[in-house]
């Protein structure tokens, strides 16, 4: 939706429902911190929001360079927000490089706030500008508000006697102060936070508060050329309850803790640092009182092997990584399949292949999760669609792992891991427990049968230390029931079939697939998984508002899939699968259900924009008799008409 934020003609426009603001600056400018605090103030104002932190892989890239730009986008408003927004309404550019790399995304007519103090000859050169874009008219289609934030900040913190470098570090708080004024936000929570953050250095706390106040006062008093009006976005109507902001990484950590508690098990987490998965380990090391043992292993392989060892010894083993690390864990995942031990493997996906794009998001490890092991080694796969959904998915992964004695993969991605959203804090009393039991005595008269399966195909969990139940397990094929080494043809056939049947059978324990927006049949189903939820949901909502017969289905259980999914998909004329890869889930759907799923792919390291999905939906409807096309969608020659419509 277009905001009227920067329309000088509009004398008394109503406040927009949602606004997208992007803070961009040097990676040392504190943009992630600014964005994080602005997010908090949005939460406290009762807005719904979604954020998208986008930062370089380099920790301190050379100052002023194009590749050193760090950005934080927030979409907030008085309406339900599902994505971090397509095009920003406001771009705060702290230097020329930040302007150059981000201005292309800004909405026409959008507002640029630029710090002229940083538009020096040297910085312009680093950003590959021949002439300052603030002066050559190249920014004509936007509103530009350029003033010397650096100088204003220095002035505001002068009384505290900071060095020039330290004083300039307060720029982000000055900018935040201005943003708080623009959106009519209370400064007090930020002031409290600054005082707490710099509790050991009162001068720094005071200086930052002064900069914050100065930025706010600047908005209040300065003549800003009529560009900026103070806007108040009211609270979004949401279910009553206690809320907090949560990132996907924190949600996974909390979900794992909850899952282990529901299983009545201590948790063992083996990890190795890797972007963007490390934050899960960072969160869990602080939760030792919940029976969590964390182990930073020497490598990815040791991390999963130690987790399997802990599961063998009776704890809930968990390991976490991103694509390259998951690749290293592949052999050990096969051992967990063969020895039928519970294990949760979290993959926070990033752009690949190889090292790829460490800090950017992608969904390209789906094949790896579903198929990526030697031998027939089926592993259930669960995928989270948002930061808060990651909490429930982590619990679900734990449940499947212990109820079926199997490794389970939980897929999130860099976007979910880093992005924050409001979360209605759940009441643990409403969670369903799934306590495990260990075998305490021989299970076949005088004999122990470690591979005797129950009705679900699950073998017993036997903890070392249990008297009388000594037995051996390992990666060599196991004889049916006894678990002894057995390479015989009939046995391998039987065990391969049993392992497959066990994983397939998990489908009976998962809910039927629901349609999250739209009808249970019709012309077009847009089927997504993972973090594409937001853009798909918004795009389908908009298309439906235009009268198009399109529905949104979002799949959590990638493997095995819900039992009704095949029949459900066959109720639509067409199936469109947007995903941030070259069409991996599309292939799995085709394979499993023989449906003509069509791909909509994106591998730029950025999430889908709503408009991209919307445009793809439109191509299924334009100009086809009997289909209601949108007014603002031009006729499309490469239309994909509805089968039913064509046959009319």
């Amino acid at each position, binding site marked *: 939706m277009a905001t009227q934020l920067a329309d000088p003609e509009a004398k008394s426009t109503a406040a927009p429902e949602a606004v997208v603001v992007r803070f961009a600056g040097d990676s040392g400018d504190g943009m992630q911190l600014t964005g994080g605090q602005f997010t908090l103030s949005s939460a*406290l104002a*009762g807005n719904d929001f979604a954020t998208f932190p986008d930062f370089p892989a380099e920790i301190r890239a050379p100052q002023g360079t194009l590749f050193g730009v760090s950005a934080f986008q927030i979409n907030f408003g008085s309406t339900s927000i599902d994505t971090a927004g397509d095009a920003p309404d406001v771009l705060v550019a702290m230097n020329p490089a930040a302007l150059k790399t981000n201005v292309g995304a800004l909405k026409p007519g959008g507002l640029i706030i630029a710090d002229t103090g940083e538009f020096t000859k040297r910085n312009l050169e680093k950003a590959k500008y021949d002439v300052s874009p603030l002066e050559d008219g190249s920014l004509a289609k936007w509103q530009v508000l350029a003033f010397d934030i650096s100088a204003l900040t220095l002035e505001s913190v002068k009384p505290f006697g900071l060095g020039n470098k330290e004083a300039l570090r307060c720029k982000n708080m000055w900018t935040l102060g201005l943003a708080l004024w623009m959106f009519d936000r209370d400064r007090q929570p930020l002031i409290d936070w600054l005082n707490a953050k710099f509790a050991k250095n009162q001068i720094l706390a005071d200086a930052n508060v002064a900069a914050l106040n100065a930025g706010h006062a600047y908005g209040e008093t300065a003549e800003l050329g009529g560009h900026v009006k103070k806007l108040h976005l009211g609270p979004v109507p949401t279910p009553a309850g206690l809320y907090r902001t949560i990132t996907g990484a924190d949600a996974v950590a909390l979900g794992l803790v*909850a899952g282990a508690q529901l299983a009545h098990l201590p948790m063992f987490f083996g990890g190795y640092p890797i972007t963007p998965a490390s934050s899960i380990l960072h969160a869990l090391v602080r939760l030792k009182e919940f029976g969590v043992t964390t*182990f930073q292993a020497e*490598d990815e392989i040791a991390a999963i092997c*130690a987790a*399997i060892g802990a599961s063998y010894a009776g*704890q809930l083993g968990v390991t976490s990584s991103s694509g390259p690390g998951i690749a290293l864990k592949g052999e050990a995942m096969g051992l967990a399949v063969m020895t039928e031990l519970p294990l949760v493997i979290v993959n926070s996906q990033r752009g690949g292949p190889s090292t790829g794009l460490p800090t950017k998001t992608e969904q390209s490890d789906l094949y790896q999760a579903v198929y990526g092991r030697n031998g027939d080694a089926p592993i259930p796969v669960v995928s989270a669609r948002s930061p808060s959904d990651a909490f429930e998915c982590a619990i679900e992964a734990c449940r499947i792992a212990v109820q079926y004695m199997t490794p389970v993969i939980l897929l999130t991605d860099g976007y979910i891991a880093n992005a924050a959203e409001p979360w209605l804090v759940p009441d643990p009393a409403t969670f369903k427990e799934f306590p495990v039991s260990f075998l305490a005595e021989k299970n076949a008269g005088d004999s122990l049968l470690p591979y005797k399966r129950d009705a679900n195909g699950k073998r017993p969990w036997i903890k070392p230390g249990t008297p009388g139940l000594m037995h051996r397990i*390992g990666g060599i094929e196991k004889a049916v029931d006894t678990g002894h080494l057995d390479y015989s043809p009939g046995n391998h056939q039987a065990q391969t079939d049993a392992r497959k049947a066990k994983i397939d059978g998990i489908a009976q324990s998962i809910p039927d697939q629901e349609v999250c927006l739209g009808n249970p049949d019709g012309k077009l189903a847009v089927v997504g998984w993972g973090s594409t939820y937001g853009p798909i949901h918004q795009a389908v909502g908009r298309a439906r508002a235009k009268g198009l017969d399109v529905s949104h289905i979002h799949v959590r259980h990638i493997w095995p899939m819900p039992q009704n999914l095949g029949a459900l998909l066959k109720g639509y004329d067409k199936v469109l699968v947007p995903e941030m890869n070259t069409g991996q889930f599309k292939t799995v759907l085709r394979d499993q259900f023989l449906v003509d799923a069509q791909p909509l792919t994106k591998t730029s390291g950025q999430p889908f924009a709503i408009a991209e999905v919307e445009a793809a939906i439109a191509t299924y409807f334009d100009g086809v008799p009997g289909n209601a096309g949108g007014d603002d969608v031009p006729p499309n020659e490469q239309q994909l008409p509805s089968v039913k419509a064509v046959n009319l």
Partner: protein
Amino acid sequence: MNEMTKIAATTTLKDWETDQEVRWCPGCGDYAILKAVQRTLPELGADPANTVFVSGIGCSSRFPYYVESYGFHTIHGRAPAFATGIKLANPQLDVWLVTGDGDGMSIGGNHTMHVLRRNLDCQILLFNNEIYGLTKGQYSPTSREGTTSPTTPLGSVDRPASPCAFALGAGARFIARGFDVSKNLPDVLKAAYHHKGAAFVEIFQNCIVYNKDVFNDFAAPKGAEDRQLWLANGEPMLFAKGTHGIALDTEKLTLKVVDVVDGDWQSAGVIVHDVTNRSIAHMLVEMPFGPFPMALGVLYDDPRPTFEAAVMAERAKASAGKEPNLAKLLAKGQTWTVEDSGPEL
């Protein structure tokens, strides 16, 4: 070994044998090691239910299938990582790790290093036969230069690794050596068991198919006295029936072989073995066979606090006075309440 295991179990050798057919080649040194372990465990008062044998991949790694205890035959080179998870999950368990020169020094060298430096309480038995047996005879990281094998038909050109020197360099606090058919092997195993922390034992093992009798130059019974230096704490380093000893060349700061006349080792300057002396340990693990006898027995034994004890202590400290309340955890951080009518700050 585990201190918490106070009650000694009463078992016999038979109690440690499984009903599984042993599948090593007839005459393999592994049989002798298996028997030595099965003979030693009852003497240690070990409890089969509380014992876990963990292995990687290779001939040696089949070991767990033949010991009537808990056993986990894992993947190539990674046994130390599994053992770490097992021991952190249940520090009460007695964990034995069985590996080989390929498994522990090549593909799993990284994990061997880290389990030693962390000092996980376990016994690590590295069967060194200087060859890849299970894959049919390729040279290994401990094969001597010039070893001919299917992958080195002209003889290997790499310099071999020394497992004990590697272990000591990685920070091991217990280093011992033995060989498959040695009558002293049970004593070495007992010392390893009684050491609290990671106990590294290199066991020379004769691969009769691919590297037959490669250790005969010191392990053959004939003339063994002259070529084996059995170390004992507090005893002089004597060999060849007390006619020779090991002394320190104080000018070169190296070891040297000295003659001992009429048993007067003192005047010959023979060193009294102190298992806690790390400098001497460095010299012993590097002592070249040939000019010197093969150093066997306990080369070094100086315990330090174990990894799992430190992890448990840290967890206890971090958890002290904290109540594991999930509801409170979920509601942590900056929160806000939404009433039916709208938000409240």
